[in-house]
């Protein structure tokens, strides 16, 4: 069992968990992920490693409540335990001195971008950070990102904080202004990563994205996570999750991401009903 040592509610449906898992923390690197199960009946869900503390033996993950499992996870408190927690999985980010790099984080994607930006900066890169969110309330880790970047741009879709617009608006300006950029790292929702890649393709700027395909084992055993990269099938859990964004078949990804949508919705409404049945009869139905 793995203890939640810290919980921070970053926004109404956005949580940060710091979880005790010394064996994972010992080896964790930027770009890798973990798979967890909340309880015995739980699904295995992947979350990216947003930070790690080797001394304390903990892993930090930031997750958005989007369905049954992430809601159930969000309902846990400090001191609670997770049934299973395995990692670090996937390949670490490729970090070297590219000179000048841009790191783009959209929404919850800011969390996984952070350790990559930090590693790139530590390797001597000049790191330009761009972070975006739909609205002010959903922004988090501005300070942390600031410390991992030489320069940080913040933007919101609705203009409720700093500039109004999309991360691609800033990215275009940055590319136009500072010519010699060696690498772009972009993590966030699929449409955002796709838009970034469309943009950087115009400029021939190599772009790395992190793919969130549906996974089961995370060790290369099931093939559920397969993605098409430059016409070749790869397993995101072992060959990735980071890939050359210009080679990714985003259309295929988007369609595979919703394979279980009707079933996921069924699971979610069942869960919400159970939660709303906040126990007057003493059956414990609301507690999980």
């Amino acid at each position, binding site marked *: 069992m793995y203890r939640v040592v810290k919980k921070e509610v970053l926004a109404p449906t956005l949580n940060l968990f710091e979880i005790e898992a010394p064996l994972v923390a010992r*080896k964790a690197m930027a770009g890798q992920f973990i798979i967890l199960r909340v309880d015995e009946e739980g699904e295995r869900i992947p979350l990216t490693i947003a930070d790690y503390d080797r001394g304390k033996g903990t892993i930090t993950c930031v997750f958005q409540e989007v369905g049954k499992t992430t809601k159930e996870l969000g309902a846990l408190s400090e001191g609670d335990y997770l049934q299973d927690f395995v990692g670090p999985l996937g390949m670490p980010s490729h970090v070297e001195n590219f000179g000048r790099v841009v790191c783009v984080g959209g929404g919850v994607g800011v969390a996984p971008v952070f350790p990559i930006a930090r590693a790139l900066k530590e390797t001597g890169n000049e790191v330009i950070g761009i972070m975006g969110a739909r609205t002010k309330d959903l922004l988090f880790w501005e300070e942390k990102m600031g410390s991992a970047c030489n320069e940080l741009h913040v933007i919101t879709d609705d203009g409720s904080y700093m500039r109004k617009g999309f991360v691609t608006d800033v990215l275009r300006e940055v590319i136009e202004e500072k010519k010699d950029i060696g690498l772009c790292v972009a993590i966030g929702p699929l449409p955002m990563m796709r838009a970034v890649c469309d943009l950087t393709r115009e400029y021939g700027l190599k772009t790395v994205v992190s793919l969130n395909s549906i996974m089961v084992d995370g060790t290369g*055993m099931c093939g559920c996570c397969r993605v098409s990269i430059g016409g070749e099938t790869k397993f995101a859990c072992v060959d990735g999750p980071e890939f050359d964004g210009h080679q990714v078949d985003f259309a295929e990804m988007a369609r595979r991401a919703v394979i279980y949508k009707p079933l996921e919705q069924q699971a979610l409404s069942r869960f919400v009903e159970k939660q709303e049945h906040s126990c007057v009869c003493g059956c414990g139905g609301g507690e999980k």
Partner: protein
Amino acid sequence: MTQEKKPKKTIAPKKNPMPSQDPVQRARNFDEVTLGYSEEAVVAEAKRCLQCKNAPCRRGCPVEVDIPAFIALVAKRDFAGAIKKLKEKNALPAVCGRVCPQESQCEKYCTLGKKHEPVAIGRIERFCADWELANGVLPQEVEPPTGKKVAVVGSGPSGLTCAADLAKLGHKVNVFEALHVPGGVLMYGIPEFRLPKKVVQAEISNLKNLGVDIEVNAVVGKFAVVDELLNGGGYDAMFIGTGAGLPYFMNIPGENACGVYSANEFLTRTNLMKAYRFPEADTPIRVGRKVAVLGGGNVAMDAARTALRLGAEESWIVYRRSKNELPARHEEVDHAEEEGVKFAFLTSPTRIIYNDDYWVTAMECLQYELGEPDDSGRRRPVPIPGSEFVMDVDTVVVAIGQGPNPLVPRTTKNLACNKRGNIVADTETGATSKPGVYAGGDVVTGAATVILAMGAGRTAAKSIHAYLNGKN
């Protein structure tokens, strides 16, 4: 074992029948298909055995169980004695009694089989193991601690057997398993209706009673590499039994469409993650109306039978050779047929057809005929030009084989592998190119059987014991 000459007895020509669930009913539930012999039936079956002096059956058994001896004890209703005898050689009899391909092993060589049906050795074995599970497991003897530590990577049948043997010899054994439960294919691959998971876990708890520690959620090559465990991890030797978990695909167009599963994914969702109990269990699975399973082995049979149980209206085995060449166990093929699985022989898909939403709607296939025998001695399937036809299906399960998972080989220094990625290990000893590191099971042989994996685990345990003694 000397046996008095008995007066010539008449022998029932057929095996005592195995009671099983009605095919129509069972095709829609996940309960075990076969119910096991009653005490009367098992004794009657044991009495069919001729107690041959040369025991040809034994030669067919990869771990050389003393078959006539344990059967003689069953005939005398000494079930405790029989299970003890079995366990001298076989660490997982409840599993083997259910899933071993006896017809190509012990039962193939049974003297009785020349004229009649052979003795139902597997069914007798299963009875003994179930009897023990029901009546309390006898404690096994463990040698005093040697102070040596061995790491076992992977908790499939090879790793579990190796761990049990080493623990009995007094070594401290830690098993590292990537998934959240131990058992390997026995847990994630072979379905509940053929091998109940509580049977597997009971066998594994026997192992824990021997003092073996099993660490789940531990992917070797990720949380630590082999070299770290050996140098600094405090392990004196290691066994690698990571299996053949890497699914092969056909490499035909449309294979990434929604509704195409590898058999591993289809079975893992169902068995390990209990998707058949969705939404009580969280993991979903989607089985369509008409399912095509590509392949003809045990894995394919399991997937096709699982599809029916998940509610598919039709479940097809699509195989490019003919019925005679099906590599699956006969019993599994019979069971599949009884349950209503349909077979398209001499057929192989050329592409998967999907709609605008990327969901499978059909599969284009080519008809085959059998030509000259190939290297395996089976007649080679040859496509018939112009024989393309379209099969209307909405789910495709690819069950054409698995390769070794590259995680450990890729992260281990000086570990020799062949060009297919299998770890190279000496068949006599299990030794790899790396001193102190042994390997066995599917990761060495490619996808094979439970009993061969167990045999390899046992061989390696003997060598590791010798290696550790030499190390003193």
